[in-house]
């Protein structure tokens, strides 16, 4: 079984400050990890993924995430927040296992950037 926890339902950050959205996961095996963003009335948009290799991955819109195997975490970060970053963010995991691509999502974190 696989699961994802996003411990914060809501994160508020002042514009220009660094932001972190937390994610921890549980899988029996090696994970593929993803971050998606959801804007109102729009589908989920892919931000970045960790497959293997460098623990720090960079994605769209200046976001990055750090894979920490010992802490089973994959926190999303950005050095300087923009008001346009306000949205609902989902962390997801799938198994590193051929033919088992389904994603398991967390419950989401609503990020609000305060001007």
């Amino acid at each position, binding site marked *: 079984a696989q699961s*994802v926890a996003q411990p914060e339902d809501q994160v508020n950050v002042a514009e220009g400050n660094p932001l972190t959205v937390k994610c921890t996961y549980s899988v029996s095996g090696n994970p*593929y990890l*993803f971050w*998606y963003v959801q804007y109102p*009335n*729009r*589908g*989920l*948009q*892919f931000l970045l*993924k960790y*497959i293997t290799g460098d623990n720090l991955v960079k994605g769209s819109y200046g976001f990055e995430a750090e894979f920490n195997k010992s802490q089973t975490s994959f926190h999303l970060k950005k050095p300087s927040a923009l008001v346009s970053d306000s949205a609902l963010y*989902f962390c*997801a995991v*799938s*198994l*590193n*296992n*051929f*033919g*088992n*691509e*389904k*994603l*398991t*999502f*967390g*419950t*989401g974190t609503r990020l609000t950037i305060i001007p």
Partner: protein
Amino acid sequence: GAGVSQSPRYKVAKRGQDVALRCDPISGHVSLFWYQQALGQGPEFLTYFQNEAQLDKSGLPSDRFFAERPEGSVSTLKIQRTQQEDSAVYLCASSLTLVGDNEQFFGPGTRLTVL
């Protein structure tokens, strides 16, 4: 290029009616997924196709739910005898290959409301 499209975008059904939700994946994408997103929750896996083969339907909540992808492209999710608990956004996603490290591209979803 065109992304994943879904129709209808909104569907209102009376309890007991049958509904059919359509997904047009990105051309050439082998894998197709259906997810259900309840209000305030993350998407939850329903079923998964590789080409026309339905490889995993473990997430379908009951035998009232049925999905098909007869020609390996367009997919239809059918819900028979709808119940109020079926009210949710139904998301379709596609990915390029059989390997799980490819990100999934999501459609805008179909919001189903069962009265």
